[in-house]
């Protein structure tokens, strides 16, 4: 049994009947509590790797192991994403028809968590993100930095062990980028989460204790 929280073994992913090789044999181990950055040029396979680590897709071959269990085989992907993973995306992906505090509650809708508890937990996360004054605003009424903070609050809804951030600062100015990275690294340290960040920005990539570089679907450093 592996002592890594996440491990990939000879991971391969291709599209269009093999014509596009996004990952060509990746091996990686990430321990619990690690902060890892992944960088590389467009098309290097870093987003594909993140998607497979997050259970958003299935590999063409190879394995993704979470606590030793093979994702999609030993562990249902929906359950894994619901219980163990939080995502933060470059485009935020907030739901336009819902207020900020309602967006945070989306992971819980249709579950057995009592309504009062959901509302209280959502409020607490918004306060943690410094958005107590923005609870009732719609995404269109928030700045880019505020939207990303709502998205981070949402990603923490199910107390994930792993937080996956795909270019979290890609749509932000430098000031907000720094704020968001501070929040993410602060959460990682405070909660002991495993944080994996995809980024184009060297400053963010090199600030992580572990920096992985990818090229042409492989880890090169």
């Amino acid at each position: 049994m592996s002592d890594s929280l996440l491990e990939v073994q000879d991971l391969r992913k291709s599209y269009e009947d093999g014509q596009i090789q996004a990952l060509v044999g990746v091996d990686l181990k990430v321990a619990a509590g690690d902060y890892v950055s992944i960088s590389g040029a467009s098309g290097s396979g870093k987003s594909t790797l993140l998607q497979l680590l997050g259970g958003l897709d299935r590999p063409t071959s190879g394995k993704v192991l979470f606590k030793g269990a093979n994702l999609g085989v030993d562990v249902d992907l929906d359950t894994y994403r619901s219980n163990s993973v939080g995502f933060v995306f470059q485009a935020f992906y907030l739901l336009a028809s819902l207020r900020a505090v309602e967006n945070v509650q989306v992971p819980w809708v249709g579950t057995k968590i009592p309504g009062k508890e959901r509302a209280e937990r959502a409020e607490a996360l918004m306060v943690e993100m410094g958005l107590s004054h923005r609870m009732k605003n719609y995404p269109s009424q928030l700045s880019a930095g505020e939207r990303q903070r709502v998205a981070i609050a949402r990603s923490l809804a199910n107390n994930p062990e792993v937080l996956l951030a795909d270019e979290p600062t890609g749509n932000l100015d430098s000031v907000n980028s720094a704020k968001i990275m501070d929040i993410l690294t602060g959460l990682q340290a405070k909660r002991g989460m495993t944080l994996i960040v995809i980024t184009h920005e060297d400053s963010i990539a090199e600030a992580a204790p572990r920096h992985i570089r990818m090229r042409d679907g492989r880890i090169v450093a």
Partner: protein
Amino acid sequence: MSATLTLADFAWKNVWRRRMRTCLTLCGIGMGIAAFVALVGFSHGFEQAWLKMYESAGTDIDVVQKTFMATTVAESAGPILQALPEVAQASPVIVNMMDVTADINAIVFGFRDDSFDLDAMKLVAGRRFHGDDAEVMLGQLLADNLAKKPGDTVDIQGTTFKVVGVYTGGSAIEAGALVMPLAQMQQLASMQGKVTAFHVKLKPAAKGESTDDWMHKAEAAIQAATPELRAVPANERASSNQLVVLAHAAAIGTSAIALLVGAMGIANTMAMSVFERTKEIGVLRALGWPARRVMGLILVEAAGLGISGGLVGILGGWGALRLMSVIPATKNIASASLPPAILAEALAVAVLVGLAAGFVPAWRAARLSPVEAMRYE
């Protein structure tokens, strides 16, 4: 304290994002449900009016032709029925719909002047007709409609009849009907020697014998005496009456077409909604929503459209029934009554239509791969 976001809230907000489209969809399904409520309500009222007519006259059994289309019975069956020990009176009757003016048609009954059916009609003016004279009695609703009173005349199919009486009946059918001597009716309808049915009033049951047993005994006796005919208890006859059966069939058939159109409206709205929210559905999956929960959300939205459209339709259908009960062409046979069972049926149909229409879009939404959905432009 912030409000909790429930599945229903989420569904409602999704549906209300495109207000115009939602309103148009509600109109579509609303019209289908309105048609259902109005037509089924109308045919139900029609059936209830027949039942009340039998009850108020004291008809126990209706003796009719066995076949559906050939609806005449030989008048000679009358004495055979009258001779049965169970039978108090067997009254021959002809029922038809006829034009009483260019714009107004009415149900016309042909009875003998000694028929027990006439006893239930309470005269408010004039008298009963005598023998086979060219005289008619008008139900009060019809008399008001035609603005006729005793002493006036009406022309029916080229024959002039004298109005001799105005009556109130036990049901909307009688109140809006015209009654004439059987022989006159046979002449107008070219049914000499024939009638539509015999209304049979039974003698009281023997002491200690249940009404049901007595009824069954009488039915069997009538059936044995007239094997070519059918003896139907009056309460069953109201629902199996050809006019009522045709009314029900027309109501269901017409409203089914209207509901199909409404359902297609919902299906189109849900298909467009899922298409527009492909990326959003991918995000829901990424947030841990299982496929069945996504499907549940879409179905809740579709059912919500169905219910909302259903409520709009029920209001519209009730309004249409009210209108039919006051306009001259239909007020004599339409009743604005709307039993709770029909309302419940309409709402159930609305929900089912919504769910059926939303099923394919919901299933397609559930099948979307999270990563492909999030990549969708």
